[in-house]
């Protein structure tokens, strides 16, 4: 039977909310539990209110819960803001002096007194005392917690001491349910999956300018460049990032850049340059709430139109949007594989919710493709950078190999010289679009759509809503979920098939106007009338999906 235990941990920025939830996540995952962590933080460095919601289960869990069994309060404000959502029978733990409504159980620990007995410790260790305390409280062994702490924060003696102190203070009051029997789980975020996917794909250079929520990939890769012999560059602005990346890829490096919507807007001209020059490029986008600066540390799926249309002029592109970290790992590798095989732009699209949430999986799936730079071993003396081939893919060479290699923003002939005549302009446009037919066939073999559950009611979604929708299915009998992972080229035939099999279609999207719905109408002719749209800058919970979808179920 499915069992869940949900913890909210909250406090001011800088009090260690994210650190503690990671510690729990890793430790519980090691113990064999499935864990999902949702992170909620405002745009500030110190103060304010951050909270993480950690759901622990004996069965897979992919989304955050709305109500909590336990609230770990690093400040009084956490209790004030969240006790409303504390479950019956739930409890709160916090410092001495913290208070809750009368009917809420609260455990007060005199953290200052406890800390004062540990030499060298200060209030920054409050959360570690609580972590140790809770592990004992639930009758869990200490070692997985210490090991997680060592993995995440290094083997700091003081940290270990503090966790042990908290552990020894507590008595086991309540046994947590048994974990799943499967051991060796993987616990990772979407950002970590993008970074790992890039490394597995064989990345040579990653370039970015800091922006929430894409920055974790910049940090992840920067920390791993030395041991893996690739390079991470932070440049002066997004325009430089995108144009430098095109230069790097032209120079022979497998290159990826990363940004969020505001940065992608600035990169628009370079995306167009990619279209004309046919220099392969992978772009990682983590969407946040727009327009403009919007609600910058929160989530949205509002950039779909931008991605599908970015860059002046017409050119084909690949848009792939995974729905969880396991899929993200695979899709990142596919994005490299396709960009470098077809000399195209691959846009890998996540959002804040997927990038920054942590999931556990029993295994990471084996990638089905192996990216290659696809550079000719010995390009011919009379090499043509834009040779017209039947499949539209001109074989790649790079500068330094011998023959002259060209890339250009102008319309050009096969050698890459500037042209203005009509005949060549038509031939080159046809060449660039000839790739599409081959690409579509290839994408058909990469599971561009997936279905979950059975029923005549078809819920359609893309990207990070996957977790909440899958978690909602047990409460929605007669509902089938269609996840669309490739948005360009669009798997129209498969989507149409699913729509035709259903008697009722419901769209679920984290945006204002139902952008996927518009795309489906454009590609299949089918207008979806039933729309569950959420645009309060927060992601769907399973509860939100159930409430929204139920209205339309037939």
């Amino acid at each position, binding site marked *: 039977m499915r069992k869940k235990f949900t913890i909210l941990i909250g406090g001011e920025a800088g009090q260690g909310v994210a650190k503690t939830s990671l510690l729990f996540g890793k430790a519980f995952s090691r113990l064999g539990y499935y864990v999902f962590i949702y992170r909620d933080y405002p745009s500030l460095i110190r103060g304010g209110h951050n909270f993480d919601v950690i759901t622990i289960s004996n069965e897979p869990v992919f989304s955050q819960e709305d109500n909590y069994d336990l609230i770990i309060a690093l400040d009084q404000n956490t209790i004030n803001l969240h006790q409303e959502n504390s479950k019956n029978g739930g409890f709160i733990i916090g410092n001495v002096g913290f208070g809750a409504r009368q009917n809420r159980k609260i455990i007060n620990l005199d953290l200052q007194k406890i800390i004062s007995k540990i030499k060298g410790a200060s209030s920054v260790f409050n959360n570690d005392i609580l972590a140790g305390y809770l592990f004992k409280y639930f009758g869990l062994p200490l070692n997985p917690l210490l090991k997680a702490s060592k993995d995440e924060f290094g083997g700091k003696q003081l940290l270990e001491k503090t966790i042990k102190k908290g552990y020894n203070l507590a008595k086991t009051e309540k046994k947590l349910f048994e974990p799943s029997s499967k051991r*060796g*789980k*993987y*616990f*990772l975020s979407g950002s970590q999956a993008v970074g*790992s996917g890039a*490394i*597995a794909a*064989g990345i*040579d*250079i990653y370039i970015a300018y800091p922006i929430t929520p894409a920055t974790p990939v910049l940090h992840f890769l920067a920390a791993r*460049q*030395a041991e893996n012999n*690739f*390079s991470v*560059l932070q*440049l*002066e*602005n997004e*325009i*430089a*990032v*995108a*144009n*430098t*990346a*095109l*230069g*790097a*890829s*032209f*120079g*022979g*490096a497998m*290159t990826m850049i990363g940004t969020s919507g505001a940065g992608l807007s600035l990169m628009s*001209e*370079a995306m167009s*340059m990619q279209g004309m020059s046919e220099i392969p490029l992978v772009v990682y986008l983590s969407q946040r709430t727009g327009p403009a600066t919007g609600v910058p540390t929160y989530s949205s799926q509002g950039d779909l139109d931008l991605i599908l249309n970015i860059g002046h002029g017409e050119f084909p592109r690949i848009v792939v949007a995974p729905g969880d970290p396991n899929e993200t*790992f695979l899709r990142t*590798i596919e994005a490299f594989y396709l960009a470098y095989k077809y000399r195209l732009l691959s846009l890998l699209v996540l959002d804040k919710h997927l990038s920054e949430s942590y999931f556990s999986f029993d295994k*990471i799936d*084996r*990638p089905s493709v192996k990216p290659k730079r696809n*550079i000719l071993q010995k390009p011919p003396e009379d090499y043509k950078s834009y040779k017209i081939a039947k499949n539209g893919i001109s074989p790649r060479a*790079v*500068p*330094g*190999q*011998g*023959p*002259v*290699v*060209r*890339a*250009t*923003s*102008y319309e050009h002939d096969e050698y*890459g*010289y*500037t042209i203005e005549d009509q005949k060549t302009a038509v031939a080159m446009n046809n060449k660039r679009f000839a790739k599409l037919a081959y690409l579509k066939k290839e994408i058909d073999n990469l599971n561009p759509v997936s279905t979950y559950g059975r029923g005549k009611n078809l819920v359609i979604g893309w990207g990070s809503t996957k977790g909440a929708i899958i978690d909602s299915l047990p409460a929605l009998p007669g509902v089938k979920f269609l996840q669309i992972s490739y948005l360009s080229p669009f798997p129209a035939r498969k989507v149409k098939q699913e729509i035709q099999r259903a008697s009722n279609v419901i769209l679920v999207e984290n945006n204002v106007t139902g952008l996927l719905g518009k795309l489906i109408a454009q590609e299949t002719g089918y207008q979806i009338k039933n729309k569950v749209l959420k645009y309060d800058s927060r992601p769907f919970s399973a509860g939100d999906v159930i409430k929204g979808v139920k209205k339309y179920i037939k």
Partner: protein
Amino acid sequence: MDIKKLSTKEKNTWCPGCLNNSIATATKFALSNLINKNAVKKKDVVIVTDIGCSSKVYDYIDVNAYYSLHGRALPPMLGIKAANPELTVIGFAGDGGTYNEGIAHLIHNARYNADMTLMVSNNQVFALTTGQETSTSEEGFKGPSTPAGVEDSPLNPVALALTAGATFVARACPLEFKQLEEIIEKAILHKGFSFIDILQPCLTFHNTIPFLQKHIYKLGDNFNRLDFGQAFKKAIEWDYDYKEKSKIALGIFYQIDKPTFQDKWINLKKAAYKVKRNVNWLKVVKEFQ
């Protein structure tokens, strides 16, 4: 190497007599000398161009070439160098692309000090768009967008490049052809970011030949290129305005050795495409277990 071997057969679309021809020819001579001396290999030369008259050279020199967007010559130059340190990267741009649209890239690439050369055909006018003012047009310049004359003071690119940290800063002019060729050769040989502001009279929209002929002079052989203070003093001797008493120095103002972008970088010391990667994906995800 005969400079004919560095020329393509593409039709030249510069105006008759355009001094960009001289800049292209001087570059070919410089490259040919360097190739003959074995200092540069033709197969490793990459030219990167902006958009505008300066950048039409993309079609005329028979080496690896990248025709970028307006204002964006420097970013792909940096990318190419990062991907393959063995390449000789030379940029061609105009004052519009470098000092207007893409000025941030000039400042930051001067700081990064990657081993590459940027030549700016500074005709102090947007020529290909028919003669509007740029940020280096002199006060009083009249163009179709400024019929009453420009009221702003021009930007001083030599002073700017110096303060931004370029390790090789020069000013040249096709009217002093031999010197231009020598400066280009030295700029390419310099290990670090080389910047040459080339005063290039535009015969159609901004013919400054009479003024330049009267006011240019060459820096003497005893000019100390290692002295930043002296270089800066020389740089502000002329403010790019057209005044009766203007003295316009040509030559290398400043040249010092500093660690380059590649020296500072930990990885990819060789061409990325030669790095064999056989990544075991299971090992990559091991850290999440």
